[in-house]
């Protein structure tokens, strides 16, 4: 699919606004010279709260476009609310009804309902069948347009347009990259506990557009996205030993990665997408290997009489974090991407018997997420790549398998409550405040977040 985008020109301001602006510029020039004796006020505390934002329904360019306008608005509202950083205001509170997005809104009526930001937009079906989406993001207090953008795409991709707009709003108001225009691949689980069918599935990050990639005849585990988002690597129990496979999302083709004696498992792409790193079984042990996908050449990275697994590259591709029980219990180690000595970074302070597993490096590079086991609990947490600053985000009977959103601010993981129930997917932000369940059709486990699609 293709999405073309153009920026919307800022609206011409009224003459009065321009005059005020001119006066303000004059005052601005004057200010520094008069500085010196002014009072200094320090505000050490603010209102740590989601940003109140008003998102009225996107206007339909033609009468038949009203429905898609409402749909886009709902997707954006849902995305921003789920991020935990925005508090979309109930539409019932709105005073002004937006009918024309090319006229400046009445900021006073949005100030009255405490909106700090306002999103207005319009969806229009073009003569050539394409859908045009326009939106403007307004700073209500300053009365300024922050973004104006328009997109053209085929009508069936309206949800993606909504995700792209959500990312724009998120990025402009938080300063961080968004993550809404992304997908999640996971293992869909159906059937009773004894005869569980596991299929590879893919969905938008908000749980919509679920697609099944495999039929469920074979057991699949640990799917991972390639940086191009067109391929997935995963482990599958076929007839013989478990093997690492590559799967092309567009064509549906799959192939075995390498031909190794024994099990191959825990695969993951390198940041450039050219290599796959994984564990190969050798007797009772396993070591890390990296395989170049074009030349098919394989390089050994570790050689220990221990189980080394769950490797994950740092975003710059120079280092690897992985899990190893070489010290007795599974712990997290970091080493150069070319192998060599590894340094243990996980040390449980509260529980001497605590163990760490499933490390994954944040796309931002600042944290490594992990599953921590100890005291009868499985916790999801993050630590810095040097092992400091450990922060547990959620704990419980069984939480496992964290994966980072493309912006490194949100994690997805799966939680299994035990009993006859099955696992489901959750997201939590890296402060641990905002934990939410991700809707899936059935039970779901082993999520892996894709990079941004655009």
């Amino acid at each position, binding site marked *: 699919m293709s999405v073309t985008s153009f920026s919307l020109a800022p609206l011409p301001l009224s003459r009065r606004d321009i005059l005020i602006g001119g*006066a*303000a510029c*004059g*005052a*601005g020039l004057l*200010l*520094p010279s*008069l*500085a010196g*004796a*002014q*009072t*200094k*006020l*320090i*505000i*050490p*505390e*603010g*209102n*740590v*709260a*989601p*940003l*109140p934002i008003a998102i009225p329904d996107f206007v339909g360019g033609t009468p038949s476009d009203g429905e898609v306008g409402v749909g886009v608005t709902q997707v954006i509202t849902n995305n921003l609310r789920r991020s*935990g*950083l925005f508090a979309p205001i109930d539409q019932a509170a709105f005073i002004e009804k937006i009918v024309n997005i090319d006229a400046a809104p009445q900021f006073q009526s949005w*100030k009255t309902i405490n909106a*700090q930001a306002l999103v207005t937009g319009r969806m229009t079906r073009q003569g050539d069948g394409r859908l045009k989406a326009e939106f403007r993001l307004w*700073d209500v*207090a*300053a009365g300024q347009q922050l973004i104006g953008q328009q997109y053209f795409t085929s009508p069936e991709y309206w949800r993606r347009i909504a995700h792209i707009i959500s990312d724009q709003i998120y*990025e*402009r*108001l*938080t*300063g*961080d990259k968004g993550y809404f225009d992304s997908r999640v691949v996971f293992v869909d689980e159906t059937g009773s506990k004894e005869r569980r069918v596991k299929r590879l599935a893919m969905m938008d990050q908000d749980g919509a557009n679920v697609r099944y990639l495999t039929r469920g005849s074979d057991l699949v585990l640990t799917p991972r996205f390639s940086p191009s988002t067109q391929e997935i690597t995963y482990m599958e129990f076929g007839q013989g030993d478990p093997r690492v496979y590559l799967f092309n999302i567009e064509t549906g083709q799959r192939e075995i990665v390498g031909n190794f004696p024994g099990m191959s498992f825990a695969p993951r792409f390198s940041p450039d997408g050219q290599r796959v790193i994984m564990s190969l079984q050798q007797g009772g042990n396993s070591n890390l290997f990296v395989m170049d996908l074009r030349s098919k050449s394989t390089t050994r990275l570790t050689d220990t009489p221990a189980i080394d697994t769950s490797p994950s590259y740092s975003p710059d591709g120079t280092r690897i974090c992985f899990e190893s029980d070489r010290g007795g219990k599974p712990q997290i180690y970091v080493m150069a991407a070319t192998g060599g000595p590894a340094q243990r970074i996980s040390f449980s302070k509260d529980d001497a018997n605590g163990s760490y597993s499933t490390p994954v490096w944040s796309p931002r590079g*600042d944290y490594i997420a992990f599953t921590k086991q100890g005291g009868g609990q499985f916790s999801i947490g993050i630590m810095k790549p040097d092992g400091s*600053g450990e*922060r547990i985000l959620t704990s419980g009977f069984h939480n496992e398998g964290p994966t980072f959103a493309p912006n490194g*601010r949100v994690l997805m993981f799966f939680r299994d409550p035990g009993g006859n129930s099955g696992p489901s997917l959750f997201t939590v*932000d*890296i*402060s*641990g*405040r*905002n934990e939410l369940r991700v809707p899936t059709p059935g039970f779901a486990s082993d999520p892996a977040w894709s990079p941004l699609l655009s």
Partner: protein
Amino acid sequence: MKVDKTLIASVALHVLVIGWGLVSFSARSLEAPPPESMPVDIISAEQLSKITAGIKTGQKENPKPLVEKVADARPAEDAVGKITEKKEIVTASAPEPPPKPVEKPVEKKPEPPKPVAENKPKDEPKPIEKKPDPPKVDPIAEALKSEEAKKPVPKHEAKATPPPPPKPKQERTFDQSKIAALLDKRDPTRQAITGAALNSSASLGTTRGTAATLSQSELDAMRARLASLWNVQPGVEHPEELYVTVRIRLNPDRRLAGPPQVISTGSSPRYQAAAEAAVRAVLQGQPYTMLRDETYEQWKYMDIDFDPKQMFRS
């Protein structure tokens, strides 16, 4: 027909005056601005007189605050007492001198120095030289015997004046008739009211008295207002990089004279978002009704620092 010239003049003058009046006193529409809510601060009388540098007994028309001494401005706490220099405070444990000689001579008139010597050998020179008291004296004790103290000298030689009623040695009895002697007979004292220029008459106070500085409550109120409007992202990473300083200029109506200026620097998109959040808070906070007219000079220009790092200490 003869026309009275004075009548013509009178008519012309009247027309002129009325015409001028019509033009000058044309009705002006009554303005009724919407009433604004006003912050009310309850302050004590002392605070008021500090703010205005006034004194209750002053004259209304006197525009200058009372100043008795040229120094750094300091208002009067209480303008009633007499002015003194500050005295060194001496505790009661200081050497206790004369009261005893007063008692002793009563019993043994011929030889006053001796009983003194019995009591306190140190006091020996006293009968000879009464005036130079020990340099450090309990002021109350001194006041108590300020009158009697002069008498021992004549007493010493003439033995004429009968001393005050004798008291049994070392025993303290309460004599109701002598309560007055126990009272502190000093005049009430106070420190001089200081100021930049001498002014001998008290005033009721001026609008720009010595305390026209931004009070802590004004600043606190403004800080609280901004803190409530400053929206901080939950779980923000590296808050120490997001320190934003906003410079504002306020008009006397407590509204911004121009858009707030971000004078701290930072280039990352996160910093820009933080700066915009700070500016939004400042814009939303106006008018800053908690600020007083008297302190306008001090809140005309303000630098407001938004410092998120204390909120995210982990």
